[in-house]
């Protein structure tokens, strides 16, 4: 069994790493002329813009997420449960949908300006394009990553640690700063890293808000046929991503010692907010309004306006079908590729499989634009017959989302004791029979979960689809993009609504499950 699994896994690794490796080698070997591109002021500006946006979004997100986590877990905030459910929901809004809705409302000649013009004759609003819009929208869409990680850490925190601080003479406030916050640091770090990676990877918001971070700069270079500059930028992104991943492994290894102590069964007493109840409530209302209610309202507004004007795309059915079929095929193929690799990693843990794990996981942080560009390069030079075909798009999806599929399968497989498989072996079954009669049925729920997750992620994917889709192959995501780039906001509403509804499904499932557990 093992050699077969290895053979297959190596094929997967080659498929995943080939395009990126090819890109890196090509750029490295391009000669000193191309390297001059690194010294262009545009490169420094892009680096500075990306870093500045990532830092700003992460910081503001932390200032939104940590108070909400603390309020919903530890205090007597009114409607605590409701806020706990509502505040992570912005995760279901794809970034280009968020960008589109905010641009349509607050852009020049946008809804707000039109409204203010009729009422007060205001003809100009402060500029939303550029940094302010990108930061605002990215923050509202990505703060849930920090919220979820700090909230999980906070609810697992041993309450006697805070009580110990109280018994040593510190009040609620200084206990929070001296004990609670330092203990949340690993979770805060992990969440912040996710937010920073989100910003680094994001294409939708920065493209719509016209703020040239790496992803937009790469896309613009690519569409203006400056391919060497696009490749160079991609290389820098790959390096930056590697730095981020290195930081992540460092933070993870340092979090170990935060896990001592069993944690008591006693739930901590809720902290009485007193006079702070109203400000706390207003804070939650503001965040939920800006990140959830406002975008939903805008989406519904544009949908109604589009329906009234008869502007709904006539071929919506076909487009939705394209999205669904591409996502379904992608999900199945990626999952099938993930199973053997995961079995090898989980059931034969050694140094080689650990390396396999690291490698197959490493692409998760790369922006879709970069992957797509690497494939374009590779295809154009070595496989012109693959260029702009569906299999090439599938390969891009595979590189982007294999880590996600592997995660889902791995979690389930880890819960299946190898003893069960060994029992089947001892009862006379061949390893292959064991897999089909024991392992696979037990894996079913994990496979379904993994497949639906990958399905939805592919459906939301924009940049790789935009660059690699066969000519004339429109999906929900790309049709939103083309409608928004031409400012046909009403046309984008119907596909955007479909996508948001689809991505809400796993979140709804998650929330319902969580309730059942309680």
């Amino acid at each position, binding site marked *: 069994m093992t050699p077969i699994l290895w053979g297959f896994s190596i094929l997967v690794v080659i498929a995943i790493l080939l395009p990126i490796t090819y890109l890196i080698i090509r750029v490295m070997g391009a000669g000193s002329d191309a390297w001059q591109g690194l010294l262009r002021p545009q490169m420094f500006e892009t680096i500075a813009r990306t870093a500045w946006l990532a830092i700003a979004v992460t910081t503001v997100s932390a200032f939104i997420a940590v108070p909400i986590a603390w309020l919903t877990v530890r205090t007597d905030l009114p409607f605590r449960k409701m806020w706990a459910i509502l505040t992570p929901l912005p995760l279901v809004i794809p970034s280009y949908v968020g960008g589109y809705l905010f641009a349509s409302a607050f852009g020049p000649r946008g809804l707000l300006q039109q409204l203010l013009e009729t009422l007060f004759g205001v003809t100009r609003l402060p500029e939303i394009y550029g940094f302010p819009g990108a930061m605002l929208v990215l923050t509202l869409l990505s703060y849930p990553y920090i919220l979820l990680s700090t909230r999980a850490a906070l609810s697992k925190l041993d309450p006697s640690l805070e009580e110990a601080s109280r*018994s040593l003479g510190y009040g609620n406030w200084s206990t929070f700063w001296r004990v609670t916050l330092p203990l949340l640091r690993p979770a805060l770090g992990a969440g912040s890293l996710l937010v920073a990676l989100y910003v680094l990877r994001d294409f939708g918001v920065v493209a719509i808000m016209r703020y040239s971070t790496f992803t937009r700069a790469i896309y613009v270079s690519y569409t203006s046929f400056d391919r060497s500059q696009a490749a160079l930028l991609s290389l820098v992104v790959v390096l930056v991503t590697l730095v981020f991943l290195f930081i992540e492994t460092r933070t993870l290894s340092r979090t170990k010692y935060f896990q001592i102590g*069993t944690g008591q069964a006693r739930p901590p007493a809720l902290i009485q907010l007193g006079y702070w109840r109203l400000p706390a409530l207003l804070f939650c209302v503001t965040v939920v309004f800006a990140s959830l209610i406002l975008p939903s309202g805008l989406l519904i507004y544009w949908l109604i306006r589009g329906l009234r004007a008869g502007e709904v795309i006539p071929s919506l059915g076909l487009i939705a079908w394209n999205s669904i079929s591409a996502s379904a095929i992608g999900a199945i193929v990626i999952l099938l590729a993930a199973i053997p690799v995961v079995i090898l990693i989980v059931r034969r843990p050694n140094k080689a499989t650990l390396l396999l794990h690291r490698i197959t996981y490493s692409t998760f942080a790369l922006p879709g634009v970069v992957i797509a560009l690497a494939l374009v390069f590779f295809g154009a030079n070595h496989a012109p017959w693959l260029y702009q075909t569906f299999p090439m798009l599938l390969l891009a999806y595979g590189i982007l989302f294999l880590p996600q599929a592997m995660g889902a399968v791995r979690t389930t497989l880890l819960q299946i004791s190898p003893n069960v498989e060994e029992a089947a072996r001892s009862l006379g079954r061949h390893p292959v029979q064991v897999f089909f009669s024991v392992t696979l049925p037990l894996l079913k729920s994990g496979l379904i979960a993994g497949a639906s997750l990958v399905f939805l992620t592919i459906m939301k994917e924009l940049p790789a689809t935009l660059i690699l889709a066969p000519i004339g192959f429109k999906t929900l995501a790309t049709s939103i993009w083309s409608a928004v780039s031409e400012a046909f906001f009403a046309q984008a509403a119907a596909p955007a609504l479909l996508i948001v509804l689809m991505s809400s499904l796993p979140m709804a499932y998650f929330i319902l499950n969580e309730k059942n557990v309680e």
Partner: protein
Amino acid sequence: MMTDSIAVHCENLIKRYNDTQAVNQISLDVKTGEILALLGPSGCGKTTTLRLIAGFEKPDSGRIIIGERVVADSITFVPPEKRGIGMVFQDHALFPHLTVFDNVAFGLRGKTKTEIRSIVGEMLHMVGLLSFSKRYPHELSGGERQRVALARALAPKPVLVLMDEPFSSLDADLRTEVREHVRRILKTIQATVVFVTHDQEEALYMGDRLAVLQKGHLEQIGTPEEIFHESTTRFVAEFIGDSDFLKGKIVKGGIQTEIGLIKQLVDLPLATQVEIALRPDDIDFQIDGSGNSLIIERFFRGAFNLYRLRLDSGQILHAFTEHTRILPVGARVQAHVNTDHSLNIFSA
């Protein structure tokens, strides 16, 4: 040194959680310099009582006075950080992000660096961990964490030390050693201590006095000897020393029972039905073919044998014998009470 001044005064404490009455009308005093053990089965309200004194819970009614100051009553509630207590938690609750030194220094506020260094040094020296000051909690063994927790609680010189099952997370062999050490330290600094345990042996060892709780009630409070020999309730007799209860009737000169007349001075009217609490050390027996009971089991306990006897009525009694005296299960024996001290007697 124990004095008669009162360090903690609890009066009619009541605490409910939803439907359960966790603490029901508990009143007790802790004398300055004494170690008071709160003892009882799980769910008896001992931990809640401790947390009420600490200020982590607010009583529904009742009054708590620490020293001269009312810390909780119907209008006052002093938060835990203002009560001047030192608490040792069940899981130690050492701050994982701080070193041993910083953990112990955590409660020392408004002191200069030199003062802090000298106090922490003194505390770590006292618990024998001076060389560990740069380590982190995850680098310590269970017993070492326990001692750091104690040092941290004692460093600010609290007026009252509270301990919640402090030894329960330690291995059995370590526990005896650590608690001897801890008791010696507490006695050296003459600390006033309230400490919670479900382990009667630990309570008897550690406590100057014991308060036995059951279902939120204070059953009895007294010295270990009083609790053991003069149990005022059947629950206390049963919980401390694993008593069996033998039915009997008051007659002239003692109590008539299934195993004969037990000579006791009893202040009850003749013919009253009673139950006598008998512990394994109160019973002896000899092989006797026409005796009153059967050996049904023997447990070898190392230093002694514990026999389980069944009287003809079905009543079970337990008896200790020396470890060399091994008799076969199934043998008929004559059991009798073998003690001079007064027994705990309850009206049936």
